């Protein structure tokens, strides 16, 4: 017996962690799958009846679902695209040794570690149409005032701007670390051959940096797709359904309407999307040896 334990102790090390994940993650997710096949809601008197795929039929016939899907993709693509361009730009421009670089990096960290709910509320005040700083700035720049969060046309870009403020530094810091780990030979060779800075960037820096940028973009996209805190605190999905992303939609179904069955089907759809796209990315990551 003692010998048996000695030989298998390597499996006892991760056992508590594995059990915890099964109890807190695997079981709840399976349970969500089960609930998504029932009509369970507050209206059904708290009783769950098996209804097969009916919730999914309803969900896929629901304009709000496609609206949520569209807005989630819009928000993610907009935020991550701007973050990537700005982040890479900042990293390249600060790519040299100077006094105060550490302080600067610390400042870049702050938006990332500041509590999103508090940040969301602060930006709500910035965006306030009459007294907010956003419109005051627009006025200084000679631009027309905007309704920001209060207009369906501007609400997603306004929310994306908060995400951009929070997370551009992450791309910048990742790319800075990537730049620091690049070998110096290709750059020297290019310089010896008389390449211009632009040519060096286009033909040396960018190809060497591409894997790092790609991973940064993937990490950011997965996170941006799951954004909840700032949207929930700033607009709650409004105006109308103007910022109702998948997360907010599923939350509203579950905890405002108490339609657990319907909410679970939306969650299953969301899970399939997140995990599906992650798997595709992991597959490519392995293939490219990134």
């Amino acid at each position, binding site marked *: 017996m003692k010998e048996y334990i000695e030989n298998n102790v390597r499996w006892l090390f991760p056992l508590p*962690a594995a059990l915890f994940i099964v109890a807190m993650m695997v079981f709840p997710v399976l349970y969500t799958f089960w609930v998504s096949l029932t009509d369970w809601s507050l209206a059904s008197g708290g009783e769950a009846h098996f209804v097969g795929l009916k919730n999914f039929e309803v969900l896929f016939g629901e304009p709000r679902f496609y609206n949520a899907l569209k807005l989630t993709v819009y928000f993610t693509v907009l935020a991550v695209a701007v973050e990537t361009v700005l982040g890479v730009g900042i990293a390249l421009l600060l790519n040299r040794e100077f006094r105060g670089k550490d302080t600067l990096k610390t400042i870049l960290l702050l938006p990332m570690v*500041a509590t999103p709910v508090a940040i969301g509320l602060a930006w709500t005040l910035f965006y306030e149409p009459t007294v907010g700083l956003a419109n005051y700035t627009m006025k200084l720049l000679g631009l027309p005032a905007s309704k920001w969060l209060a207009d369906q046309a501007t609400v997603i870009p306004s929310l994306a701007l908060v995400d951009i403020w929070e997370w551009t530094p992450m791309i910048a810091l990742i790319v800075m670390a990537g730049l620091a780990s690049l070998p110096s030979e290709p750059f020297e060779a290019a310089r010896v051959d008389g390449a211009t800075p632009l040519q060096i960037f286009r033909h040396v820096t960018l190809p060497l940096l591409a894997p790092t940028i790609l991973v940064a973009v993937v990490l950011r996209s997965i996170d941006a797709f799951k954004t909840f805190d700032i949207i929930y605190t700033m607009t709650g999905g409004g105006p109308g359904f103007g910022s109702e992303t998948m997360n907010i939609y599923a939350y509203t179904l579950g905890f405002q309407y108490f339609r657990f069955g319907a909410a679970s089907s939306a969650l299953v759809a969301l899970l399939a999307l997140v995990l599906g796209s992650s798997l595709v990315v992991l597959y490519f990551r392995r293939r490219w040896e990134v």
Partner: protein
Amino acid sequence: MKMPKLSTILFYLFALLVILPFLFPLVWIALTSIKTQVQIVAVPPVWIFEPTLENYRRVFVEQEFGRFLLNSTIIAVGSTVFSLILGLPAAYTISRYRQQALGVLILLARLMPGISYLIPWFILFSKLQMVDTYTAMIASHMLVGMPLIVWIMVNYFDGLPRELEEAAQVDGCTLQQTFLKVVLPLSGPGIITASTLSFLFSWNNFMFALVLSADRTKPLPIAIYSFVSYAEVSWGSVMAAAVVIIAPAIILTMFFQRYVIKGLTMGAVKG
């Protein structure tokens, strides 16, 4: 005295221009927190004014933020400590014995949208009559902290040389002894990175507390959010509360700057 070169001055000006947009909103939050409501809604904005601590008095005396500060601390420290206890040994054997299946499980836990747990957790903890207990709050936050800790520590252990462990095992140390006496003492930097991030993620978490906490265990993010559900928002108090909740995260980050950067950018840069 040597004059700095023009290009250097230009570079610093430029760096300032890049960094200012990231710093400014935080400075503005702090400034707003010491203004009166009249000063806050003034257009154009007031830059020079007599600061007031009234907002902080309201936050701590009327809203009892001390309690929420304590709740957040208990939950963040608790979830980090228990995540370390579960996560460190797991990370060690995943690193040394290539326990792939477990690695995938941890990765899944990192990718999963937190919202997909809300309904089952709410039902489960309601049935166990554990909604609004520290146990439920800590357990939920551990599902973020533990995979993060394992992820960081697997990377860290992978980079540790194995000679010492092999020597210890030749000398007759069991796996437990090797782990406790040889590996852990070498793991300081990794553990600091992992725990700082686990603490920060728990400190900032809003979604889980939204359904799992009520009056007794309410943490800071929920407390500050409940400010705006009142009819008229007192922006000064909201910003004072924002300072109270953001300041500890910032202080911790400044203290452990290198470790936080390492943790947040990990996995993206090889080596």
